[in-house]
């Protein structure tokens, strides 16, 4: 199935020599997704919900079918557990502000981890500060794995939520969310999973994992920018208050008072990104044509080959050696700043990211001001790793 996979992606038609090693920032888009968006914009465009003409009905139906499809994708039998948002960041903020904040009190605590992205760090920090609650940050060990013992100790009867990413976008660590969610649930703590980096390749079956909240972005799973998902377990649905206020979330308005619809509709104020959701729906179809285990196997092969090859370069140091790793590898090159590395790789048509990857607390802890990050998806291959290695070797030679 993954043979000729590059041909699905128009970008490689235009740039056959592009080694796109930045899929953790955003994946490329397959032709089928772009066509679904274009099809909708060209021939099916209408606003949803309040129209009774054919185009609007059909858009409304497809929008709600997309909700069902997303629900099925994570194993939820109830589409009303799914809200469409603009991305992971938006989804997490909704849980912080429209779920947790009103019940958070002085002396309570929130548990996150040092591996978390700013999107799963700052919202909690802000409400903790506002309410006089404590933000507890689970440490990592030298390899870059979460210290599960500490995590267990940090959870107590004052813990109001445990929120963490499935996969670290900086180090590539795959957290054992199964075990961690159980730890939380044993103490009756709701658990939120930031699945931004895993949703495209990992099974997130709700029946297996039993998370309370799940957040992810379309653009990291072959879908367009501006789309995101929030899953809320049935038992919490009644606890979600509106986030933005506007049209489409209203039961009744008068000058004195307003009453609101239930989740997920109370979260989707204003006109949603309808065409984006059509793209997201198409991206799920795209993913479903593959076997997830095969996808992971392919990515894992390229990733481990990359680690092997980078390890042969003296001046390269890989940051983090987690037990279980996704397709993400961070490294530094002796005496050459990551920014310079990335710029020179770009000269050889190799696209990588340099910086802090929105994980400043983690990099501060690692005493690494920045890293070079390569991240692989299904369209990458070993040959690109060879080019990466050659380019790094040449750069180091040039520099010294």
């Amino acid at each position: 199935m993954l043979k000729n996979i590059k041909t699905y992606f128009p970008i490689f038609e235009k740039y056959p020599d592009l080694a796109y090693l930045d899929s953790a920032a955003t994946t490329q888009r397959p032709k089928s997704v772009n066509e679904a968006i274009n099809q909708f914009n060209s021939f099916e465009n209408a606003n949803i919900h309040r129209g009774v003409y054919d185009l609007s009905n059909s858009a409304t139906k497809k929008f709600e079918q997309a909700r069902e499809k997303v629900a099925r994708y994570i194993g939820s039998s109830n589409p009303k557990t799914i809200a469409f948002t603009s991305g992971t960041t938006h989804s997490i903020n909704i849980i912080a502000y429209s779920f947790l904040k009103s019940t958070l009190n002085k002396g309570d605590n929130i548990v996150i981890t040092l591996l978390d992205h700013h999107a799963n760090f700052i919202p909690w920090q802000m409400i903790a500060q506002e309410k006089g609650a404590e933000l507890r940050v689970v440490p990592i060990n030298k390899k870059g794995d979460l210290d599960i013992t500490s995590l267990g100790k940090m959870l107590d009867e004052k813990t109001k939520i445990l929120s963490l990413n499935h996969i670290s976008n900086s180090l590539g660590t795959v957290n054992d969310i199964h075990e961690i969610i159980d730890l939380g649930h044993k103490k009756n703590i709701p658990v939120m999973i930031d699945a931004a980096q895993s949703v495209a390749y990992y099974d997130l079956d709700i029946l297996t994992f039993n998370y309370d909240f799940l957040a992810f972005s379309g653009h990291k799973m072959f879908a367009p920018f501006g789309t995101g998902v929030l899953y809320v377990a049935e038992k919490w649905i009644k606890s979600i208050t509106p986030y933005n206020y506007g049209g489409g979330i209203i039961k009744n308005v008068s000058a004195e008072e307003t009453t609101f619809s239930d989740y997920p509709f109370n979260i989707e104020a204003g006109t949603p990104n309808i065409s984006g959701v059509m793209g997201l729906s198409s991206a799920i179809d795209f993913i479903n044509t593959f076997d997830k285990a095969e996808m992971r196997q392919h990515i894992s092969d390229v990733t481990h080959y990359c680690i092997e090859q980078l390890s042969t370069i003296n001046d390269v140091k890989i940051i983090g050696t987690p037990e279980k790793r996704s397709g993400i590898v961070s490294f530094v090159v002796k005496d050459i700043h990551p920014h310079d590395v990335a710029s020179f790789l770009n000269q050889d048509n190799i696209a990588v990211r340099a910086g802090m990857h929105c994980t400043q607390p983690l990099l501060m802890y690692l005493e690494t001001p920045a890293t070079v990050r390569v991240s692989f998806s299904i369209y990458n291959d070993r040959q690109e790793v060879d080019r990466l290695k050659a380019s790094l070797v040449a750069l180091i030679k040039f520099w010294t």
Partner: protein
Amino acid sequence: MDVTKEEIQALYKAHILPENKHPYHFEAKEGTSVSFDAYNPMCGDKFHLYLNVVNDVFDTVHFDGIGCAISKASTSMLLKKIEGMSKIDAKAICEKFINNLTNDHQVDEFNDELNTLIALKHFDGRIDCIKLAWEALLNYLLVKDLEG
């Protein structure tokens, strides 16, 4: 659209318009044992149902309010159907009816005017009008009634 304009018009003419013009027990009846709104905030349709329950049976049933011809006719047909019926049977009917409406294929036939409403589900975008009162009643039976 799965139904032609002519078919829709025929259904309206034969069943919806008459029911809309002469809805069943269309009047306010204060003081009934049960009363609640059937309200669709999207379009503004709002009916008030006045149901008198005696020994778990819907004894007398009335409604008033404002809505489109379909939602009014559907509410009227609902009331005719449940009058004299036990809560348990009414719940089963509501579930069957809504199930029929929302499934792509008709699951189970009704042998009366309710079939007209089911047929209109293909009149796209009007399902919410058809099921408005049915969902409100079901919601009452499933949620409010149990809460006491």
